């Protein structure tokens, strides 16, 4: 079943390369996403058996990521139906790459071999690059280039880290995750440390953690909203899954402290850096991209703190994906309506497009972790974990950075929603599909904000137990 889940999107991608009408490809993507989502839904009831001699295994961690990916693709597919009613651009490469991305991201979430994991993460990088240059403007090509180069080099470092891990595992003589975990005490400590640093830098680069975040504002600012949703909600969290796998190994080898300290440092850096840079930003997409760096920092922080923080980080993975859907699909729909996502061009959304305006407000509140939304709980858990671990300064820094982030985003978002438009805009009818996709994510955010469903909590607990707390 797992291999089919990888192969079907791949075959569909090949089908999307055929010369057919544009709308057919959109429906193909929708059908594939629906199929994918229903299969993943079935996995919640009945976990599939390992496949390919143990290369592919679905554990609770993978299940969380897989469900996130599935949901992201479904909402993007629905959004796209509306989007391509107004868009005349050729979508062959775009949709083929989306489908390939679905296939490879599925591979990431189920791969149980560190080498295979690397191959999968690298492939996701490659197939996401053409998505950024969908508009083929000069800026987007430059952003694509930057993304490709920075991430490729980062991932190359992760490959080096994987090889170091293989040296550390000289006595184990395999890179299968279960074998590594079982015989973790046999790993050579020095090489493991070196490998962990390289893996963190490599996958952290892909995740967009602070010192390696430079590609993010460019790429997210230039790419179309749908692509960014998959990158910010899916790709970065795929890299995070890789970091969680490393964390599993470190915990079993008794090196949690070492790994946690680096994670906490990078996490705090990724909280501080965007909070500083966001204050001068004029473009809503770039603004949200800084917010995305911040969320990645929270994830790293939660993983580093462990305990409640770990549970919070896993929960935050889900919320982060939902928030990204709201944020970037709204930004994408604004960009399509106004042909720009800069605050100078977009004003008075609440009058011209009331629903989009409300979604932007939700993106602001949920993105910065305000109360009724689920992000509030997950962020609180992570900060709470910092307090429990007696890292008071850390908790204070996180709160201050989140406050700064709120100021930075609200400065622009409120202006866009309530500002006085410079020229009267002829409001068109809002598209049902586009709004439905965003509304679903908003509803889920609210639902998880008030009540965490039983099966979800169970899976989150199982996943947290896997990392070893």
């Amino acid at each position, binding site marked *: 079943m797992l291999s089919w889940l990888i192969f079907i999107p791949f075959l569909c991608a090949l089908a999307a390369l055929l010369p057919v009408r544009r709308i057919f490809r959109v429906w193909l993507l929708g059908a594939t996403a629906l199929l994918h989502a229903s299969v993943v839904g079935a996995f919640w009831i009945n976990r599939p058996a390992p496949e390919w001699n143990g290369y592919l295994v679905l554990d609770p961690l993978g299940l969380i990521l897989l469900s996130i990916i599935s949901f992201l693709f479904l909402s993007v597919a629905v959004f796209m139906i509306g989007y391509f009613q107004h868009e005349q651009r050729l979508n062959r490469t775009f949709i083929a790459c989306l489908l390939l991305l679905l296939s490879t991201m599925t591979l990431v979430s189920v791969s149980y071999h560190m*080498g295979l994991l690397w191959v999968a993460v*690298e492939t996701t990088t490659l197939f996401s690059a053409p998505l950024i240059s969908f508009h083929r403007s000069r800026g987007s090509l430059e952003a694509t280039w930057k993304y490709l180069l920075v991430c*490729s080099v980062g991932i190359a470092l992760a490959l*080096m880290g994987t*090889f170091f891990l293989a*040296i550390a595992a*000289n006595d184990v003589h395999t890179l299968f995750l279960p074998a590594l975990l079982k015989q973790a005490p046999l790993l050579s400590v020095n090489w493991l440390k070196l490998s962990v640093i390289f893996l963190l830098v490599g996958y952290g680069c892909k995740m967009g953690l602070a010192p390696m975040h430079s590609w993010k504002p460019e790429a997210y600012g230039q790419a179309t909203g749908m692509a960014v949703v998959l990158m910010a909600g899916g790709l970065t969290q795929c890299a995070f899954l890789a970091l969680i796998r490393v964390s599993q190994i470190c915990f079993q080898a008794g090196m949690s402290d070492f790994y946690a300290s680096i994670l906490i440092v990078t996490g705090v850096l990724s909280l501080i850096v965007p909070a500083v840079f966001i204050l001068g930003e004029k473009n809503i997409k770039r603004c949200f991209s800084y917010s995305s760096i911040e969320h990645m920092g929270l994830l790293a922080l939660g993983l580093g703190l462990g305990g409640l923080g770990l549970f919070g980080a896993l929960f935050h993975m889900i919320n982060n994906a939902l928030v990204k859907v709201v944020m970037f699909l709204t930004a994408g729909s604004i960009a399509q309506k106004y042909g720009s996502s800069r605050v100078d061009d977009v004003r008075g959304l609440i009058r011209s497009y009331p629903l989009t305006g409300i979604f932007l407000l939700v993106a602001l509140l949920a993105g910065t972790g305000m109360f009724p939304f689920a992000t509030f709980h997950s962020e609180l858990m992570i900060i709470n974990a910092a307090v429990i671990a007696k890292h008071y300064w850390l908790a204070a820094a996180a709160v201050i950075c989140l406050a700064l982030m709120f100021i930075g985003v609200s400065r622009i978002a409120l202006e866009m929603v309530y500002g006085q438009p410079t020229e009267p805009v002829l409001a068109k009818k809002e598209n049902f599909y586009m709004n439905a996709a965003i509304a679903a994510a908003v509803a889920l955010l609210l639902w998880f904000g008030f009540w965490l469903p039983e099966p979800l909590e169970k899976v989150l607990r199982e996943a947290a137990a896997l990392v070893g707390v």
Partner: protein
Amino acid sequence: MTTWIDAGCILIVFFALIILATSRIVGMIRIFVLQSCVLSLMPLFLHAEAVSARDVMLSLGTVSLKAALVPFVLFWAIRRISMRTEVKPLIGVGASIVCGALLIAGAFWVSLALRIPGRPVTDLGLPCALATVLLGFMIMVTRTRAVTQVIGYLVIENGIFLFAVSLFDAMPTLIEMGILLDIFVAVFIMAIVLNNINEEFEHDPGGESRAKMGETF
């Protein structure tokens, strides 16, 4: 056989240094081909007493991807750029060579602190791989053109690959093939983006961006 392995390791580092010292893009690509050819021989040298099918496959895969397809794709991507195009380094070629020599020394110095468990066939594998990776980084950072950055990336990959083949064989062949294929796809996509960039900037009538194309792309 050890002499051959050692000579291979050293030649790979040396070619990386020469790429750093080359001032023409085409020359850089040609030397990269040489480096990849030497690299592709390494699996055969390392298991010279009993060459397995895996080694032959790895060797053939490397030579066909890195020494044939990748340069072909790169040449395709730069077909509009003049053959004599200079590299435009941020720091001069002379200074780069001296820095490169120091980087090599650094790589060896770092390797002193790292003990490989088990019995590696050659003790030069680790320092030479590290040196190649560092030189690749140096090429990426100090050469401003897009193609040269790709070459720098490829040199880094060659360094990592040298590391992989010379030290151990814990990776299943399938994964190793996957890694090779990934790198090729990476270069392929980079070349397409590069081509788009060239087209985009060529159709532009403005002079400013044209100047920029010379600088960056």
